[in-house]
């Protein structure tokens, strides 16, 4: 029978291969799903993996979708590396969108183009403020950041609805729950005429570099990661877990808020109840598939945006439901978690009595436990 056997050392090769294996499994599952739904698997897969690259407009759309995923994913990577489980990026995204909209709605037709800057800053601050609530409650009351940040997502969505159904509703909007369409000066500058990709994408790329440096070349980033890997070692070294908590949440909240600002002042151009598109949750998958590494996240955000675009194409051209995207994303994450075991374990075939899959055992000295209280 098949047995798992511990490797003497983690396999670096597998570390890189594992996301590819996960992708392969997802593709196979996708093909099977298409067949089950009565559609040609190769056409279905083409929607997801070939069509989105056809032509400049398609590639630009890929980048547009990847921007928020990359921005949020980078922030979450820092958070998760510090063992702070921010699940509420979606809510922080919404608050960033709300804050950015507030600034945008104050623009006049003759406002300077520089109004984009305070719009983005407002987005960052909005997201940070929402995440600060989580940090505060965890810091002062030890409340689980997983549950608090999640509850705040629901609260954020209700807040958004309250605003767009109420005071912020466009009086000339035929009663639809939406704000005014933001005026021209507020539009995020685009990179190429005719294409929707804007400087948000450039900022995302710059962020990849900045975050890489922070995580791997800056002592502050090192401290946070030690806190996430071995809390007792961080205490021993004197690294403040409180500071790590706040920094992690403020960074990830700020990035999510920034993504919200880019979305609402960019492609969407107004605040509607449909602004929360699930990017905050998809970014969790982006972060993981990217191995919590900024360069990896660059690629995984492009991959995830492939799924989004593919889902839309599959809907418009093949009549498949858009929720297919969600299924693909879920399967990808699951497969990744499963194939990640291959990094630390080998699969072996044992004919006779299988031995317990144990690593070399010695009378071990006490090992400090590294979970937070």
């Amino acid at each position: 029978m098949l047995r798992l056997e511990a490797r003497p050392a983690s396999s670096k090769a597998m570390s890189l291969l594992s996301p590819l294996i996960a992708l392969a499994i997802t593709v196979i599952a996708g093909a099977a799903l298409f067949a089950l739904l009565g559609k040609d698997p190769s056409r279905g897969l083409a929607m997801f993996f070939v069509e989105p690259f056809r032509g400049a407009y398609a590639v630009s759309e890929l980048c547009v979708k990847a921007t928020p995923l990359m921005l949020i994913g980078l922030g979450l990577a820092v958070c998760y590396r510090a063992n702070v489980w921010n699940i509420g990026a979606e809510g922080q995204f919404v608050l960033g969108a709300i804050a950015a909209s507030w600034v945008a709605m104050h623009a006049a037709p003759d406002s300077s183009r520089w109004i984009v800057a305070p719009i983005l800053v407002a987005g960052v601050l909005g997201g940070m403020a929402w995440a600060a609530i989580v940090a505060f409650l965890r810091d002062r009351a030890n409340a689980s950041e997983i549950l608090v940040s999640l509850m705040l997502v629901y609260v954020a969505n209700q807040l958004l609805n309250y605003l767009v159904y109420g005071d912020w509703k466009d009086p000339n909007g035929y009663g639809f729950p939406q704000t005014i369409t933001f005026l021209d000066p507020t539009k995020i500058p685009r990179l190429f005429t005719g294409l929707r990709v804007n400087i948000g994408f450039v900022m995302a790329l710059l962020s990849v570099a900045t975050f890489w440096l922070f995580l791997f070349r800056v002592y502050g980033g090192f401290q946070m990661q030690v806190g996430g890997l071995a809390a007792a070692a961080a205490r021993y070294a004197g690294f403040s877990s409180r500071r790590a908590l706040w920094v992690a949440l403020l960074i990830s909240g700020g990035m999510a808020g920034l993504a919200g600002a880019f979305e609402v002042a960019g492609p969407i151009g107004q605040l509607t109840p449909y602004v929360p598109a699930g990017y905050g949750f998809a970014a969790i998958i982006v972060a993981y598939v990217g191995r919590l590494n900024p360069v990896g996240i660059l690629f995984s955000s492009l991959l995830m945006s492939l799924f989004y675009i593919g889902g839309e194409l599959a809907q418009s051209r093949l009549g498949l439901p858009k929720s297919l995207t969600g299924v693909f994303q879920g399967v990808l994450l699951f497969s990744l978690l499963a194939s990640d075991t291959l990094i630390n374990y080998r699969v072996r075939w044992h004919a006779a009595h299988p031995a317990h899959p144990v690593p070399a055992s010695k009378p071990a000295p006490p090992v400090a436990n590294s979970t937070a209280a």
Partner: protein
Amino acid sequence: MLRLELIDISKQYPAVRANDRIRLRVEPGQIHAVLGENGAGKSTLMKIIYGAVRPDEGEMVWDGKQVEIRNPQEARALGIAMVFQHFSLFDTLTAAENVWLGLDKSWSLADVTKRIVEVAGVYGLDVDPLRPVHTLSVGERQRVEIVRALLTKPRLLILDEPTSVLTPQAVQALFVTLRKLADEGCSILYISHKLDEIRALCHKCTVMRGGKVTGEVDPRNETNASLSRLMIGAEPPQLHHETARPGEKVLAVRALSLPRLGAFGADLDAVSLDVCKGEIVGVAGVSGNGQQELMAALSGEDPRALPDSICLFGKPIGAHSPRRRRHEGLHFVPEERLGRGAVPSISLSQNTLLTRTESVTPFGWISIGRTAALARQLIADYNVKAGGPDATAKSLSGGNLQKFIVGREIDAHPKLLIVSQPTWGVDVGAAAQIRGALLALRDAGCAVLVVSEDLDELFEISDRLVVIARGRVSPSIPAAQATREQIGQWMSGLWSDDVAEVMHAAA
């Protein structure tokens, strides 16, 4: 007829051959020692006998019949019972519930409680069945484990390093119990690396080294030297001793009191102790008496101490963070290597950054080159067998990682070095190197505080000794004047202020 015979038992793990064609012969009613240093394969062998691990090759013969033990229940059914080194007890359950879980028979909890009291009485093991285990001392917990084993009416009792948590007096009491058991026909497998105990207690001794059996002897006819030669292939390494010349006072702890954190743990009660330049002060004590709490207070990991309860060169540091204390010259080696002294999954280079920040600029930029250079230097200076500065901490053996961590702190030129359990789980060679390094550090004028559960080690390297018991610290006594019996008494908390006066006069 032999009670248990192992023939050519072998077990291979991915990186190491833990047992290589082991032969073992245990007679009925015999106290049989299995001697070997850390990493020799004793624990693996015991797990095989107890059914927790399956051997790759070899045979086991029990009372003349060949058997295959597939799990602990089958071992228990045969009459094999094991008392673990790290107790397999459940803290939030009572002693009776713990024993109940360890028995396969379909007794009720009430039955079990009654039998516990009976058995405890017969063998002189004081156990209250109704107390939750987390309220018990380490010695009491071991008694619960032993009672649990005895209730299965064992024909072979395995004890894995039973005396590492006992005072010398408690060790003698345990020996009385074991001899009584052996007289009644129960065989005993006694796993240890303590030569004196084995020579005092055991009828036969199988010596293991590097996974193989190097000899089967009668320990009563052997000397420590001959046993040591079988165990590590050489005589026990000698350390170079110079006389201590203590100078000014470096560390002064005065009336340090801290309530425990949480339900499990010890309160520190008006702890006072001094360490001077150029001397090693040893803190003896059975685990669970406040050592961990004292270490956390001294290192700064527990920030609650009053500022002037801990003074370094006269300056109060009780409220300083660990980083600040390091800056002021106080370095610390904790008892847990993996997870506290080092982060297991990152490289040795990165692990230097935990306590050494010379390669970090004031703006926070890490110089990768300088970090690696430091790691390389430590590896070379302290004889660390590692794959290089990029090797992960968990890829090192216990002894090598300990040498690295101790080296990292000594290399920082501390004014005060505090070390907790310096050679726990470390092979004899590395242990000798570490102790030698501590002595050299002392000779160079550093003040050293060592906390250890190994009395022999403390006697070997300390200039002065104190004992910690139930959160209180005894007055100090020069190591040359202390005896094991006296220290053993003190470990039960039985020192008096009269002694303090006497010692102060003599010091």
